[in-house]
């Protein structure tokens, strides 16, 4: 491992930590008295400090250090958790996020954090007076009366911590760790040891100081004082698993006054050379519930590798199909059997790879509580955000893209949907509006809903606006039903906000939202009831890489139509096609269905040789619209791997991409949304 390996680890973990911090802060705002949360926040800040200092990002380290000071006071109850403090902590979080993003993008740390640090410090000094009063009243133990501790290396404060911890049944250990002589990254190793131990308890002191450890300024060994409930043996096991650790000495410190002079040398020494394989120790869950145990076995994998794997599996699927065709052509039955087996394996493999690429939507949802909080403050709304189903999994590509549309829908829900507390009271609703963000799987799709309990969408207003803005004509308006009218909000150039705010109502939003979702192979619809609220319902495919498609033939060309947009296929006679106002239609079970000749749309040269009697019609739907596509022949259903057409042809939106057929030829995949 060189430094760049640490770098990606550092960035990943920092992001995780910041996300965690965000969540904790939000919870803290609701429950200012929850000490467990404060502990967690402190721990996160501390980890960030340690990691960034090791990596040499001093700005991050300094800021987190100042945060720690404030947090420490907070968790000791020396300072009350007031909204101001939480606000400042949120600001710190934002700044940290920016800093980490800058590091990710390779931008120099150039953010000035001094103002923020000043605020943090003023928080401290402001509270110093108040805190003094409080502590003089409530201080249970003064430092003078402290029992003498076994070692002179601890200062009064640390001794006090130890005394208190002992009182609660914790053990105090002094752990001396020596690294191998040739260890190159002492700082990193020390840090890893530090983290292992921190998971087990609280590190109260290190020799040398944490800062020096982080900078690697020590010979080959260092000491850590740990307050924990964990077992000695286990601690040793944990530390020894860190690479390049040579020996671990552990000494329990007793706090008995009579035993002041004689340290119980209860040393356990484990030599790594003797111990070939560390014994797996049963995990004792000793933490008090506030330390998250991240012990599930995971491996971080570069996204690109996953994409490559997916491509390879795709290739495999293509070649399997090719083999099947060869088998059919030459009537090789044995081959067929083997291929069936291969087919099962590839299907399993494919499912597995697909699952690997799936990420819980939590990743996207996580940032919304904060956003809604800020937004509600800004707009003077009172919002209760309910998130459900964040464990629902979606393909990574979808996850990456779905964030922006959701942001937009949520902003709309807060801004237009829920309405101001006053408006709501007038309507006889509670002042606090509820916005629900739900995700759940439904068949082969995932549904994401944004619900609000606001005033709903009034079709009359929409219609009026649409006419004003020229989105539709009077003539069109007459024929429209309520449901269609509501769908007008997705038309380009439509915005009903009375005044244009920073938040929503720029008239670009909903149109962009719909386009984005459709480009992901999904669709969006609205359900609304005036006075009761609205729901925006997004349906997305589980994955984008491999789809089921129907292959259709048009003279000599072959096209693929995604099965997800097909309702059914029918065959009918030439004379079944009627015309209404020069448009071709058919009657399908009593309903009029417009039909389109695919060969005309795609300008396929007609194969004049055959004049068939029967026509094949593929009934497709997109959103509310249905149509029949007349094709020359139906070839069959097949699993196809979607390949991009590349930058050059991306403008041709009637194609969702291309796929490679069993015989190696390329077939274009039709995008029904843009075809109709």
């Amino acid at each position, binding site marked *: 491992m060189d430094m760049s390996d640490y770098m990606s680890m550092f960035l990943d973990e920092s992001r995780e930590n910041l996300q965690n911090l965000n969540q904790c802060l939000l919870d803290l705002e609701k429950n200012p008295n929850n000490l467990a949360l404060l502990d967690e926040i402190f721990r996160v800040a501390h980890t960030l400090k340690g990691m960034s200092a090791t990596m040499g990002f001093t700005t991050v380290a300094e800021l987190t250090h100042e945060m720690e000071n404030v947090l420490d006071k907070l968790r000791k109850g020396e300072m009350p958790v007031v909204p101001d403090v939480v606000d400042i902590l949120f600001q710190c979080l934002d700044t940290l996020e920016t800093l980490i993003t800058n590091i990710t993008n390779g931008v120099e740390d150039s953010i000035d954090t001094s103002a923020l640090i000043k605020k943090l410090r003023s928080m401290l000094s402001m509270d110093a007076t108040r805190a003094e009063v409080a502590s003089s009243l409530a201080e249970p133990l003064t430092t003078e009366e402290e029992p003498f501790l076994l070692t002179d290396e601890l200062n009064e404060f640390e001794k006090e911590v130890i005394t208190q911890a002992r009182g609660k049944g914790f053990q105090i250990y002094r752990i001396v760790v020596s690294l191998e002589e040739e260890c190159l990254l002492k700082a990193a190793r020390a840090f890893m040891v530090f983290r292992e131990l921190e998971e087990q308890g609280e590190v109260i002191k290190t020799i040398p100081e944490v800062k020096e450890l982080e900078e690697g300024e020590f010979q080959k060994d260092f000491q850590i004082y740990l307050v924990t409930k964990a077992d000695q043996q286990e601690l040793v096991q944990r530390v020894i698993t860190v690479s390049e650790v040579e020996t671990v000495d552990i000494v329990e410190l007793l706090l008995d006054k009579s035993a002041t002079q004689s340290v119980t040398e209860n040393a356990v020494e484990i030599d790594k050379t003797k111990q070939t394989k560390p014994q797996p120790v049963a995990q004792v869950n000793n933490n008090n519930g506030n330390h998250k145990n991240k012990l599930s076995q995971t491996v971080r994998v570069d996204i690109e590798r996953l994409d490559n794997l997916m*491509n390879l599996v*795709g*290739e495999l699927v*293509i070649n399997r199909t090719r083999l099947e065709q060869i088998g059919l052509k030459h009537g090789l039955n044995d081959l067929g059997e083997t291929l069936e087996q291969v087919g099962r394996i590839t299907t399993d493999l494919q499912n597995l790879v697909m699952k690997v690429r799936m990420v819980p939507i939590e990743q996207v949802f996580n940032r919304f509580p904060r956003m809604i909080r800020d937004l509600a403050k800004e707009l003077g709304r009172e919002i209760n955000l309910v998130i459900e189903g964040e464990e629902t999994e979606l393909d990574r590509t979808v996850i990456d893209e779905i964030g922006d549309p959701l942001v937009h829908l949520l902003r709309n829900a807060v801004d237009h949907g829920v309405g101001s507390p006053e408006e709501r009271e007038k309507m006889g609703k509670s002042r606090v509006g509820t916005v629900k963000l739900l995700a759940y799987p439904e068949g082969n799709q995932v549904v994401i809903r944004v619900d609000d309990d606001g005033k709903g969408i009034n079709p009359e207003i929409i219609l009026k606006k649409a006419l004003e803005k020229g989105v539709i004509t009077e003539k069109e308006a007459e024929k429209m039903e309520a449901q269609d009218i509501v769908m007008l909000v997705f038309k380009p150039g439509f915005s009903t906000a009375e005044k244009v705010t920073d938040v929503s109502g720029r008239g670009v939003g909903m149109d962009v939202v719909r386009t984005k979702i459709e480009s992901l192979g999904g669709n969006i619809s609205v359900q609304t009831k005036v006075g009761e609220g609205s729901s925006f319902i997004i349906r997305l495919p589980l994955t984008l890489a491999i789809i089921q498609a129907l292959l259709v033939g048009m003279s000599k*060309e072959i096209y693929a139509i995604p099965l997800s947009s097909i309702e059914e296929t029918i065959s009918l006679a030439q004379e079944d096609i009627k015309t209404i106002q020069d448009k071709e239609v058919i009657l399908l079970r009593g309903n009029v269905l417009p039909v389109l000749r695919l060969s005309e*749309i*795609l*300008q*396929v040269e007609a194969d004049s040789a055959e004049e068939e009697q029967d026509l094949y019609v593929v009934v497709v739907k997109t959103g509310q619209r249905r149509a029949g596509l007349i094709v020359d022949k139906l070839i069959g259903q097949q699993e196809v791997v979607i*390949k*991009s*057409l*590349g*930058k*050059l*042809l991306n*403008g*041709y939106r*009637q*194609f969702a*991409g*291309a796929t*490679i057929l069993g015989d*190696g*030829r*390329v*077939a*274009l995949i039709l995008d029904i949304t843009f075809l109709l």
Partner: protein
Amino acid sequence: MAEIKEEVNNGEELQLVIFKLDQEEYGVEITQVQEIIRMMETTRVPKAPSYIKGVINLRGKVIPVIDLKKRFGLCDCALDEQSRIIVVEVDDFTVGIVVDCVAEVLRIGTNSIEPTPPVFSDLSEEYIKGVGKLENRLLILLDINKILDIEELEKAG
């Protein structure tokens, strides 16, 4: 690049892949060429400009193929055994270009490349980097980036 002259580039060489379109000889820098493959069946992309011949399957990757003769408005002669697809990589996308035949790979000193003459066949000047003189041959140096300029393609489409 019009001012490439002796004193600066004396002795420097370009390695070019020389191919024929109709009767003319063209060259592209070898660094841009990924590979040269035999002509293969292409899949037509409906509604695309006529010079986009279609897409092909290049070992599992779908790439578009451009008919340079159509692009330049040269004669539309039939493809034959000699026809090849030169796969070029520009920026980060890959495109095949159909040529009548690939003649050779040769080195040419930058000092024997001259700026485009003001009047030059049907080719729009901007696609041409210059004209290379080699004994009594004239080689037209193409600027692949310009030919594949996406915006331009969109305009044309």
